[in-house]
């Protein structure tokens, strides 16, 4: 019993530590974030070496309720912690939106092991659909959002189909080509604003309460971003739950099987077509949702928000955080969004920085900050000692 309590306290402390790390990096300057990232790399490498990291993951896995309550409280109290600073709230909102897209992208990169270079297309289709419907046709933003998710899913099929035929470099080329076509078409079609984009997208309303109004609590005037922060993080939380469950479900295993060897996977009765399309469609649905949130948050979208460099940033999030690992992807999304937003002061060096950071992380930790973990099915105790698990992991890694 005492050990159980001890576990709980440890898990809570770890969760608090993570929250504080997020808070500090949010508040501080770019240099501090970079130092934090460097320390994180060292710490994680150390934990990996000693096997601590597995224990931490087990601990967190056992106390999900407790840790998610802590994370939830952190998000709820964040606006007060930052004293209603709209800049910082904006960063967190964008991080949440990017996180949703990255979780969806992870179904392709982490799941079936194919790099899709066009996640920004899904993201853009979601945003453009709802923007078009709500601005040009006056449809309610909520309905527009649903339409956006549906259309993005459909786009998932369109981009997923070539993926059935092509893998590796060929898929990379196909998705880059489709990404380029998407951007060019947006620019060329006046109905979606052409190069001008779509301004004046209406904001969400809940029972007549516009999410774009300021909030007054405890005598503190908070900017309207607070509403969006909560909305985005509710969706983000749902996405996290959905993604984790998916990866633990039979679909997740099927994805990994396809990643390892499609032919063998097919001989095990996995329908390659449907399982690969599923990963693209689900990823697209996540991205479509995020796109709609983004459109109704900023009130303006244009092709620049959904071009190839945006796709590349999204891929970086997944790879740097750790593909096929939900906490890893979230870490990647949070860290990179913060770095990206704080890089605004050094706009000249922004892309150079991205390139260098990506190369360095690939060289130092090719599997990301928080790499993929060995699957643990349910709560079953496999009777494996830690050493065995490590050996198994080692053997698996050699493949």
């Amino acid at each position, binding site marked *: 019993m005492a050990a159980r309590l001890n576990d709980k306290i*440890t898990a809570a*402390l*770890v969760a608090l530590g993570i929250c*504080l790390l997020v808070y500090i990096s949010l508040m501080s300057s770019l240099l501090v974030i970079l130092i934090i990232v460097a320390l994180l790399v060292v710490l994680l490498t150390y934990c990996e070496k000693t096997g*601590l990291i597995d*224990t931490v993951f087990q601990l967190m896995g056992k106390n999900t309720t407790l840790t998610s309550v802590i994370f939830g409280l952190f998000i709820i109290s964040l606006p007060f912690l930052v004293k209603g600073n709209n800049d910082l709230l904006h960063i967190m909102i964008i991080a949440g939106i990017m996180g949703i897209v990255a979780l969806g992208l992870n179904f392709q990169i982490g799941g079936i092991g194919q790099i899709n270079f066009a996640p920004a297309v899904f993201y853009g289709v979601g945003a453009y659909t709802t923007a078009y419907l709500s601005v040009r046709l006056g449809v309610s933003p909520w309905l527009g959002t649903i339409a956006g998710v549906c259309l993005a899913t459909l786009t998932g099929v369109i981009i997923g189909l070539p993926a059935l035929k092509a893998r590796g470099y060929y898929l990379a080329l196909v998705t880059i080509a489709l990404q380029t076509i998407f951007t060019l078409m947006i620019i*060329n079609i006046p109905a979606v604003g052409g190069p001008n*984009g779509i301004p004046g997208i209406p904001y969400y309303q809940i029972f007549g309460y516009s999410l774009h109004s300021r909030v007054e609590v405890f005598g503190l005037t908070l900017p309207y971003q607070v509403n969006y922060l909560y909305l985005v993080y509710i969706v983000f939380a749902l996405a996290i739950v959905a993604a984790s469950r998916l990866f633990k479900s039979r679909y997740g295993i099927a994805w990994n099987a396809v990643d390892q060897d499609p032919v063998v996977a097919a001989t095990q009765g996995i329908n390659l077509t449907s399982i690969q399309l599923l990963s693209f469609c689900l990823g697209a649905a996540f991205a479509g949702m995020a796109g709609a949130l983004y459109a109704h948050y900023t009130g*303006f979208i*244009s092709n620049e928000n959904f071009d190839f460099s945006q796709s590349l940033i999204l891929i970086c999030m997944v790879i740097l955080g750790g593909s096929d690992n939900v906490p890893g992807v979230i870490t990647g999304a949070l860290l990179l969004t913060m770095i990206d937003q704080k890089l605004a002061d050094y706009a000249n060096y922004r892309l150079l920085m991205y390139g260098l950071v990506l190369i360095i992380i690939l060289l130092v930790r090719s599997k990301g900050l928080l790499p993929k973990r060995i699957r643990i099915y349910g709560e079953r105790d496999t009777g494996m000692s830690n050493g065995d698990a490590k050996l198994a992991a080692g053997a698996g890694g050699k493949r």
Partner: protein
Amino acid sequence: MTNFLKKRSILILACVVVSLSLMSSFLLAGCSSKQSASAKTVKVAFIGPLTGPDASEVVGPKNCFDLAISQANASGKLPYQIQSVYYDDASNAGTAANDAQKIVSDPDIIAVTGFFNSAPCAAAIPIFKNAGIPLVIWGAISKDLTQAANMPYITRVVPTTFQEIQPMATMVTQTMGYKKWAVITSTSTYGQDTLAGFKAGIQGVPGVNIVSVDSIADGTTDFRPVVTKLKSEDIDAVFFGDNLTEAALAVRQMQELGITNVLLTGTSALTDPAYIKAAGTACEGMIVSQSGEDPTLLPNGQAFVAAYNAKYPQGSYGSYGEYAYDSTNIIIAALDGLGANPNPKDLATKIAAINYNGLLGTTTFDANGQTTDKLTTIMVVQDGQFISWDNSQYKTGVRKLPPV
């Protein structure tokens, strides 16, 4: 046993992380709490691409903005000191929209002046309009930015592309009689806008028609397929709505492929010595229109230039500096008389109705919020230099333009 030890070490590690983080967060909080308490402030925001590809164009306007604010603060006309704040849109519409959101959620900001590019401006306008913050545009020239629906919040002191192109279009079609036109333009906002402006400019002139329109993505270097096509189309003149580099390449490739007997025309984007350097002899006799005039020739210009040079000895005020200066001064003039606690809505109404006599002459805004003061100059390339049409040898007939 080892498991227990591991858990212990995690506990210790977590404690260390948490305590370290707590300490540093208190430190941070201590730092940030210093600057909170102060009296009622009035801020005016400047927004433009302070970084990115157009950054060099905005140095001048930003200095002019500062100059106007400091002159106003020094004069003591207003019962408070105006604070200036800067936002960077990096020529990116998404960034501009975010900036606009930040501006409207700062209750101290009472007015905004800004925008060099049209797309970021278009992105931000609905946000300012909805929040009721007045925006005076000094640089973005797309026609649709100012419209009756946006009044009284959105006004503009710089002529639009339409106003800029109109006199030249009338001159070359009506007066000179060039009939068959081809348009080479860009898929960008600017390119599409100039295309619309040119179409509007030649509308109603009998017998004039546009044979072909080619919108080409920015960054294209090979215009030969398009130029080859023009060669077979027997045209009198070409209008370029592109940016400088693309237009220079297209002009050069036209010369290379032997299309030399057509009139070339373009927009103010080309009135830069770099264009002539890039286009070489191919652009000789090209006619372009430009908004505005040399500030030193304007009535109040000498004082402005003197004040600017005194404050910023190095660096010029750029091609839009005078507009930024006047737009800031219009905001300041409108603030005068609104009391110690001005309200953005009242300010907007006052700006829209203003009759301001400044650097650019007398500025009033029409029903769309567009300035009625439209200065444009038509220029022609003569011996590798831009020369005002009225002073050129082409007007006097010493040199000949391509035949109609």
